């Protein structure tokens, strides 16, 4: 069964303190791995898509990387406005109709 596991569940950092969030996945043929950001009371907001091992994507202070078994979201010198829940999701199989499966997320809190 396709599965996505995120760690840690929660992470508290000081402003400027870099760290990484982990997403481990088990799927039968990865079609794509996605990172989303979710603010309290809002729907998730798309950040990145990664398709193959070795691929990297960057956006401001965020960088996502992908291996054959996991993905990392690296946060460099975070600011309080980066506080949110970060969700990892995968799409398996060879069809665009395949469902997107989400992990439980990592709640990130950045203290000023």
């Amino acid at each position: 069964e396709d599965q996505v596991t995120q760690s840690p569940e929660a992470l508290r950092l000081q402003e400027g303190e870099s760290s990484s969030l982990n997403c481990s996945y088990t799927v039968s043929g990865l079609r794509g791995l996605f990172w989303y950001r979710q603010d309290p009371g809002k729907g998730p907001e798309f950040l990145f898509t990664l398709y193959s091992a070795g691929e990297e994507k960057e956006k401001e202070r965020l960088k996502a990387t992908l291996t054959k078994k996991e993905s990392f979201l690296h946060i460099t010198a975070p600011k309080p406005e980066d506080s949110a829940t970060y969700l990892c999701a995968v799409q398996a199989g060879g069809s665009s109709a395949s469902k997107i499966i989400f992990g439980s997320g990592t709640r990130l809190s950045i203290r000023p």
Partner: protein
Amino acid sequence: DAGVTQSPTHLIKTRGQQVTLRCSPKSGHDTVSWYQQALGQGPQFIFQYYEEEERQRGNFPDRFSGHQFPNYSSELNVNALLLGDSALYLCASSSLSNTGELFFGEGSRLTVL
């Protein structure tokens, strides 16, 4: 450009009742997916609609049903509500050519008493 809109934003029902939630997709999108998100959890896939047909379904009972209209808007219906159905219901739209990039609405917060 209007994004994904959902209604109602909040609603309270009692056990055994039925509820209908509505979603209008982002302009240009033809695929609608519904998710259930319990507090502190990630979104759980309910089903996906394209061309007015259910294409994929998650592990949800038949009490959960949906519909997509010719204008691509969609409804989620839940019958015989249980306390455990209390959650944030999220609608997400995408294009068939890029179904992994989901655009979410703000959600409908359902409380079952």
